[in-house]
């Protein structure tokens, strides 16, 4: 955090006499909170990656001592050989960290906090103190989850989906405290997300700058708004389920234990009722930010702005009625399966619309390949693969074969890594100047991008083949099955690619840290963008604007004939522009 302190406010726009602690630790400034989320969740991203590397070692070289594995305690990997119970902890914790502590906070915690006030033109969130609590609840949740790896009997081990009754009864899983800490941590995550979401929603509804009408909002803000609604309504269900799970674990209730009358499928229904909106929480903000970056990179207005907005809304709406597609094989009534299949296939439509609109945006553009644009285009390409592979499992008869195989693993990583994480690599580079006042290295950004892009496909594309061969998920040692033994060379190939992919991320992290202090000082508007945030100096000062700007147009007026340059910011007043009509300020 000290580095942030050194660079975040090198050029304060106006006098700021808050103490260090109020400024950077218990800060209520949305930008600092966003940066706090960024640092913490990048750390968890690294942890999640490290866990994945251990899994990949075991899958490539089952039962062989892992290099450096000797530092792990006896209960995890005696002599560096990963134990089955540690392997399933790795599986569980990798999923949990990546979903709840890396991708979700990176997208929502970082960019909803950082971008919403800057992009809609307000001084801060509606409830800055609640915003601060949202971060600290998340931080506490992360610490609890991390600590669970080191308690007696180890961490939770029922998969990130925590299917009951394996998760609910310690005698089934062999874990104890770790399993309980998982529940506690998830309850805290829920609290954090709810507090964050209510802030984002209130801020976007009430605190937009004059002239920032709904349909002048950037798609990033639109997607964050819809994401916040999803989070607001989905996370309490998860929290409720996690509370019941925790009670099953510690005070002997029987919600999910069929041995005492409870219902095992109840957990799945509750979890996926949250879980599917969660999937869209993990992709919508990425879509929004990619829309901003693609329009900027193509120097062209986004193609079909309104249909993009309606696609987001449609995805969010349909996202509530598709949760059953995770449960086609669970013994749920097959007639329900039919209706979930149809709703799931229909949700492909708005996703397709978005992909075509991004392509439409690039069509006849004047495409600049800066690092954010490269990552954004990779997002479109990879999200397309992830979306298309989703159609296989939506079709229930095919799902009967590929459900819970590596095909699913491939699919979800194409969406979460190929989708969300590429968008994030783009977004981090794109808004880095506004956060820290410096640019990240363009050259190393490109090196990182190309290596990541190639290696990423080497890691995850072959998993489709494994899945088609029938390789189940979460297997400690697939070579135990005769029919999977021929696939071992492919597992080795995937693992080696994964190690290289992980090593490549070092480039990103070094670039990130190095640029904090040594990066090229950023101009006010390095990407020639139209958003309100670029009217501020880099880094954006505390309180953002002395007086909020007035908005005269939509966010994507690139190459407009009205302007001499190829961009026309939202805040630039042309002689032909009229002042927006101001509604009277409400209430008190």
């Amino acid at each position: 955090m000290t580095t942030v302190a050194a660079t975040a406010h090198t050029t304060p726009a106006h006098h700021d006499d808050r103490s260090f602690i109020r400024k950077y630790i218990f800060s209520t400034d949305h930008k600092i909170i966003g940066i706090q989320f960024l640092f913490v969740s990048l750390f968890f991203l690294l942890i999640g990656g490290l866990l994945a590397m251990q899994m990949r070692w075991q899958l490539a070289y089952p039962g062989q001592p892992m290099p450096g594995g000797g530092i792990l305690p006896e209960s995890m990997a005696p002599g560096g050989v990963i134990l089955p119970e540690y392997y399933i902890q790795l599986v569980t914790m990798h999923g949990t960290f990546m979903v709840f502590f890396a991708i979700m906070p990176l997208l929502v915690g970082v960019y909803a906090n950082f971008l919403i006030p800057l992009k809609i033109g307000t001084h801060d969130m509606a409830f800055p103190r609640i915003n601060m609590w949202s971060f600290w609840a998340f931080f506490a949740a992360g610490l609890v989850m991390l600590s669970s790896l080191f308690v007696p009997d180890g961490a939770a081990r029922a998969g990130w989906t925590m299917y009951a009754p394996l998760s609910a009864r310690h005698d089934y899983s062999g874990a104890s405290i770790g399993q309980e800490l998982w529940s506690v941590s998830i309850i805290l995550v829920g609290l954090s997300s709810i507090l964050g979401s209510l802030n984002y929603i209130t801020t976007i509804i009430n605190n937009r700058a004059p002239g920032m009408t709904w349909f002048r909002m950037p798609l990033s803000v639109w997607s964050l708004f819809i994401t916040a609604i999803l989070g607001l309504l989905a996370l309490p269900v998860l929290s409720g389920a996690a509370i019941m799970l925790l009670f099953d674990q510690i005070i002997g209730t029987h919600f999910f234990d069929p041995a005492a009358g409870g219902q095992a499928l109840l957990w799945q229904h509750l979890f996926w009722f949250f879980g599917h909106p969660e999937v869209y929480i993990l992709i919508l903000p990425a879509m929004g930010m990619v829309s901003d970056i693609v329009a900027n990179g193509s120097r062209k207005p986004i193609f079909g702005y309104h249909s993009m907005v309606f696609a987001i809304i449609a995805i969010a709406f349909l996202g509530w009625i598709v949760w059953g597609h995770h449960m086609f094989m669970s013994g749920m009534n097959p007639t329900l399966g039919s209706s979930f299949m149809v709703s799931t296939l229909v949700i492909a439509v708005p996703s397709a619309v978005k992909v075509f609109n991004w392509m439409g945006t690039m069509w006849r553009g004047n495409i600049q390949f800066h690092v954010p644009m490269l990552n954004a285009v990779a997002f479109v390409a990879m999200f397309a693969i992830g979306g298309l592979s989703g159609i296989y499992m939506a079709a229930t008869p095919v799902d009967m074969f590929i459900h819970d195989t590596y095909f699913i693993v491939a699919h979800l990583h194409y969406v979460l890594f190929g989708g969300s994480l590429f968008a994030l690599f783009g977004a981090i580079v794109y808004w880095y100047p506004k956060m820290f006042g410096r640019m990240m290295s363009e050259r190393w950004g490109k090196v990182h991008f190309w290596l990541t892009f190639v290696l990423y496909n080497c890691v995850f594309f072959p998993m489709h083949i494994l899945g088609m061969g029938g390789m189940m998920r979460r297997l400690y040692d697939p070579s135990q099955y005769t029919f999977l033994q021929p696939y071992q060379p492919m597992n080795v190939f995937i693992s080696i690619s994964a190690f290289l992919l992980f090593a490549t991320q070092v480039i990103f992290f070094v670039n990130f840290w190095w640029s904090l202090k040594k990066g090229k000082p950023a101009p006010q508007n390095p990407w020639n963008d139209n958003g309100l945030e670029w009217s501020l100096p880099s880094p954006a000062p505390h309180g953002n604007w002395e007086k909020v700007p007035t908005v005269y147009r939509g966010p994507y007026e690139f190459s407009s004939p009205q302007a001499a340059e190829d961009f026309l910011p939202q805040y630039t007043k042309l002689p032909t522009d009229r002042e927006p009509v101001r509604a009277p300020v409400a209430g008190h």
Partner: protein
Amino acid sequence: MTHAAATVDQMLPPYPAERGLDVYNKKLGMWVFLASEVMFFAALIGTYVILRFGATGEWAKPGIVLNIKITAFNTFLLICSSVSMVKAYAAIQDGDPKKMRFWLLMTILGGAAFVGIQVYEYIHLVQHGFVPSGVREGSELAELVAKGTLPAATMGLYGSTFYTMTGFHGFHVTCGVISMAYLYFTKALPGKYTKQDYGGIETVGLYWHFVDLVWIILFTIVYLI
């Protein structure tokens, strides 16, 4: 919450931003928060409904396990506290802070009494042998189960859902009482609420009515049917 908003106001110059809704932030925020609370209780109540109607065999008889009379009185108390909340709100709208303080205090006392009675009820139930995991061995209720007056198969589920739902409701009431007491001492007593500024009362009132409404649903489905 009030305090946080005040910090913003000191920090920021007032400006005529175009408002999306004709509702001030705190109130909108509370509505949004209540939407998430609805989902939370929906999860708990939905679980109860699924477990109850999916259970094989007869459901536990609330009339035998629980003391409905005392809870009915408690329900009445909570409804009264909702009325007194309305009274407090009406009073400050009329610009009568003294009357508002009185009714706010009544609401706090009503809420506190509700929590107190609920704690008493819990102690009583546990002594009888009704625990979250079902029926405690060797207790009065265990004998009833042995006699067949109460169904053995579903007592565990009834205990699980009963304590979780009413417990979390009680937790919400407690939070409400604490926030009202906080507002009472930091805002109402120093006379910071006026005819023009009573956002805190309105916001906490919304929450209070919501908690009350949830209780009426819970009382009906857990105690009565």
